[in-house]
């Protein structure tokens, strides 16, 4: 019964006040480091879009960034819950429907405006085949960063947490990829970007039980370095 008194004494000794917002800060750090890696890889391997300087003047460039940032934000917000024991975030995750619906409406309006012959191009662009996969690839470093962050916290619903991390990583990856991708049609974004991000979410959920497992090996002797 009292076998752990020494442990308790030691833990109490190394008590450091918890910073408010520690969970969100850790998640943001993981995502940010991943995003920097992803950005470096995308600019080095794929390059910025050739018309970058002209594109920043048009609205579609910013709509793409806003859309992908919104998807990433929802994922991060849900992960802030799911990285805690018993955390549930169904309501937060459901919010992902808002940016997706907004983008779908924009896409539908654009399609209805267009003459019949142009519609196929608006949806397929020139890179539909590659787009979701490249977004998925861009998401990988961010997912790894988030997994590092979440494993240091205490998720208990690993699938759901994996989905949230995947969604955030997908949104961030798509954000980075948008700096390379010259596609500017709303229907293209609504279909292929969304697909890429959701693919990342699904992959994250699938991998979650493995990538997000955490342990605390008993260590009586060694003074552990308390994280956070």
């Amino acid at each position, binding site marked *: 019964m009292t076998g752990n008194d020494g442990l308790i004494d030691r833990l*109490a000794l190394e008590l450091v006040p918890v910073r408010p917002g520690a969970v969100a800060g850790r998640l943001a750090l993981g995502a940010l480091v991943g995003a920097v890696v992803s950005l470096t890889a995308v600019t080095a391997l794929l390059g910025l879009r050739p018309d970058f300087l002209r594109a920043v003047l048009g609205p579609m460039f910013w709509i793409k960034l806003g859309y992908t940032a919104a998807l990433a934000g929802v994922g991060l917000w849900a992960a802030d819950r799911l990285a805690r*024991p018993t955390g549930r975030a169904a309501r937060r995750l459901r919010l992902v429907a808002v940016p997706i619906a907004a983008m779908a409406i924009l896409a539908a309006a654009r399609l209805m405006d267009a003459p019949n012959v142009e519609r196929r191009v608006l949806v397929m662009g020139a890179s539909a085949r590659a787009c979701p996969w490249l977004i998925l690839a861009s998401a990988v470093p961010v997912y790894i960063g988030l997994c590092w962050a979440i494993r240091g*916290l205490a998720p208990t619903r690993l*699938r759901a947490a994996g989905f949230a991390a995947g969604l955030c990583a997908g949104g961030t990856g798509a954000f980075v990829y948008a700096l390379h991708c010259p596609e500017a049609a709303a229907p293209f974004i609504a279909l292929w970007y969304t697909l890429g991000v959701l693919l990342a979410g699904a992959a994250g959920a699938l991998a979650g039980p493995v990538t997000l497992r955490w342990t605390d090996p008993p*260590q009586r002797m060694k003074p552990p370095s308390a994280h956070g």
Partner: protein
Amino acid sequence: MIASLGGDASAYRLVLTDLQRRLRPYFLRRLAPGSAEADDLVQETLIAIHRRRDTYDISQPVTAWVHGIARYKLIDHFRRLKRQPTSPLDDAPELAAPDQSAAAEARRDVERALSHLPQKTQDLIRAVKLEEASHADAARRAGISEGAARVALHRGLKALSERIRGVR
């Protein structure tokens, strides 16, 4: 617990000691009889609570948070035993049963806090919040008007929540 998060070491020691006392039976009840692992699990859980204390959300009950960690450790332990390191946590219905103990522990917490309130307020809260009787019903049982019952109930709940927070 909240004082502990702020860095109050003696409050923290009390919390950990109390948790240890509750965690041991929690694990003993759920492990195979004669299993020697309960102490290891208690220790692992205490370390997890300590290292991951920044995941405690002040707006949530401490009991739920601790139970979440303890349950994760227990499932992790079972999984190691089964040597099925990849079987998903969410798909293990046979492990879902321990969840009821959370309710039991929480109920005990609430009952303990309730016992400090005046008898009449206790009855009101039990009737309305635990048995889900209507305000009118509860008022009739207590022999007071519905308005008075609402006021008493509101004050009682406030005192209750203050007590639960204060106890931590």
